């Protein structure tokens, strides 16, 4: 029984009752459930890392570190190396970050620094959010039938006029790094814009007021006060956006050409770890699957490092804004 010391002694007309046995049972049962809910996330992550590790183990044992430095992926010879994919992953993400980051930060400034009426701001913010809502495969489809045909003449012209420049040293046939990175940039942009917008919004109004009070112009306020103040938040957004880009799969698998190729040229086809998985996994044999699991582990490691970095930067930002050192 529940220990209820009060019933008798409390004033006789009280309607108060201790919770019923069932209430208490429900309470502890539910708390256990919630506990397991929270635990499930931890277990899930542990299980993912463990399972990928186990699956990749045979490949790790056979290929060792050479897997990371190897440049050939040849299932029939059981020769596996992912350096071109690592290169492609990082290179395409970096380009996407530079483009998407510039746009994202620009848009965040546009949305927070009073360039348009509040109502228009909502419109533009919605546009950016919708950009993020469009599924990756749809961008892939759009990339194939709209972006690439549009890019080919531009790339041809760049190659012909600036062909000496490593970035433009080859012709764009169809799929390649440039269309892939551009679509990736579109996908990174909303992340960067959202987090940067937050960073700008978190700046107390009084700071903006102080800057205007000093007689700064709007752009002096933005560039000399708002941007530096929001910089660590923006940085976090960039890092998280980079993390997104690293893991993006389908649009890339559809646009990048899926070729093991290490080249600086934006117009060469390339490959990424994620699109290697997407294009090779469905028909891989057992040995190749093990190698792909290893590749998945490499991808996991890269994104983990980048995301942890992003979270750390974000944490640091928060603390900074709370005024602590």
């Amino acid at each position, binding site marked *: 029984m*529940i220990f209820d*010391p009060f019933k008798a*002694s409390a004033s006789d007309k*009280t*309607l*108060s009752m201790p919770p019923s046995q069932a209430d208490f049972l429900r309470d502890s049962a539910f708390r256990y459930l919630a506990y397991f809910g929270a635990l499930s996330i931890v277990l899930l992550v542990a299980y993912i890392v463990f399972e990928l590790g186990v699956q990749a183990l045979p490949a790790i044992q056979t290929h060792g570190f050479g897997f990371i430095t190897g440049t050939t992926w040849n299932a029939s010879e059981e020769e596996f190396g992912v350096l071109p994919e690592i290169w492609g992953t990082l290179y395409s993400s970096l380009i996407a970050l530079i483009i998407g980051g510039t746009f994202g930060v620009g848009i965040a400034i546009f949305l927070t620094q009073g360039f348009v009426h509040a109502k228009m701001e909502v419109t533009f913010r919605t546009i950016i959010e919708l950009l993020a809502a469009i599924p990756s495969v749809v961008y892939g489809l759009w990339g194939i039938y709209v972006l690439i045909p549009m890019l080919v003449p531009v790339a041809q012209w760049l190659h012909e006029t600036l062909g000496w420049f490593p970035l433009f040293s080859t012709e764009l046939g169809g799929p390649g790094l440039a269309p892939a990175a551009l679509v990736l940039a579109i996908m990174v942009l909303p992340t960067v814009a959202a987090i940067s917008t937050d960073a700008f919004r978190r700046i107390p109004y009084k700071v903006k007021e102080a800057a205007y009070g000093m007689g700064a112009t709007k752009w002096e306020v933005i560039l000399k006060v708002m941007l530096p103040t929001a910089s660590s938040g923006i940085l976090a957004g960039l890092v998280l956006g980079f993390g997104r880009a690293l893991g993006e799969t389908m649009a890339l698998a559809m646009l990048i050409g899926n070729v093991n190729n290490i080249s600086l040229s934006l117009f060469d086809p390339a490959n990424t770890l994620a699109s290697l998985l997407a294009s090779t996994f469905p028909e891989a044999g057992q040995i190749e699957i093990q190698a792909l699991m290893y590749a998945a582990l490499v991808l996991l490691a890269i994104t983990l490092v980048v995301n942890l970095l992003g979270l750390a930067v974000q944490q640091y930002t928060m603390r900074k804004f709370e005024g602590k050192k």
Partner: protein
Amino acid sequence: MDTLTHQGDFIATPYEPKGPVVIDCDVKNIYYGDFRAVRDSRIPIEKNKVTGFIGPSGCGKSTVLRSMNRMNDLVESFRFDGKVQYHDHDIYDKKVDPVIVRRYIGMVFQLPNPFSMSIYDNVAFGLRLNNYKGDEEEMVVKALKRAAIWNDVKDKLKNSGLSLSGGQQQRLCIARAIATEPDVLLMDEPASALDPIATRQIEELMVELKEDYTVALVTHNMQQATRVADVTAFMGVDISKGGRTGYLVEMNETRKVFEDPEQELTKEYVRGEFS
């Protein structure tokens, strides 16, 4: 303007209750983590009276009040050392579930906090919680009338409790608290967020309520204490040992505390010389 305090180990003269005591709160120490918030304060709450708590900000009025129905158990770092005797049980006894304590000892908070449900449901909330089997509607209406808000809301019982004005919300919260006819009502500055007219209404309400209930009231408004409280506990802050520990300076019938206090500190405080 520094707060004056006693130095050292001052302990207030114990207050001799004149009537039956419902809660006998005997604090040795209350800690938040390593921070000692209150020390050595014995505060008995008498039946069918309003016991007021006054004192400068941070002296631990709320802390002591919340100790009486174990609301502070929700604060992770809270540690209570002492005894709170409710009728003949120590509510800090290991066997006691704080949830049960709170059913008998209700609470009204500084900021009105109705639930985001209809006015009716707000008041019926406690009844349902306590599995009340009688006529729910009757009890709800009764509580609303008792809390002097019936006329304001009788035509819109289905509206959200949040749609009311601040003063109305606070009276709704009081109605919610008294619907289950709790044994004791703890009120922590229930009128501090309200305008003068709403404040006056709440004060009148408290005076009425004590006929049926026992009320403990924290207030920062000394006029309010004189108007409402039968007995007043004045708490101070002791900064002698580097900390900021609250303690009971003086407790007595309200008239006595305000007109002829025992302690110099009390005199200065009730005259408004420091805050």
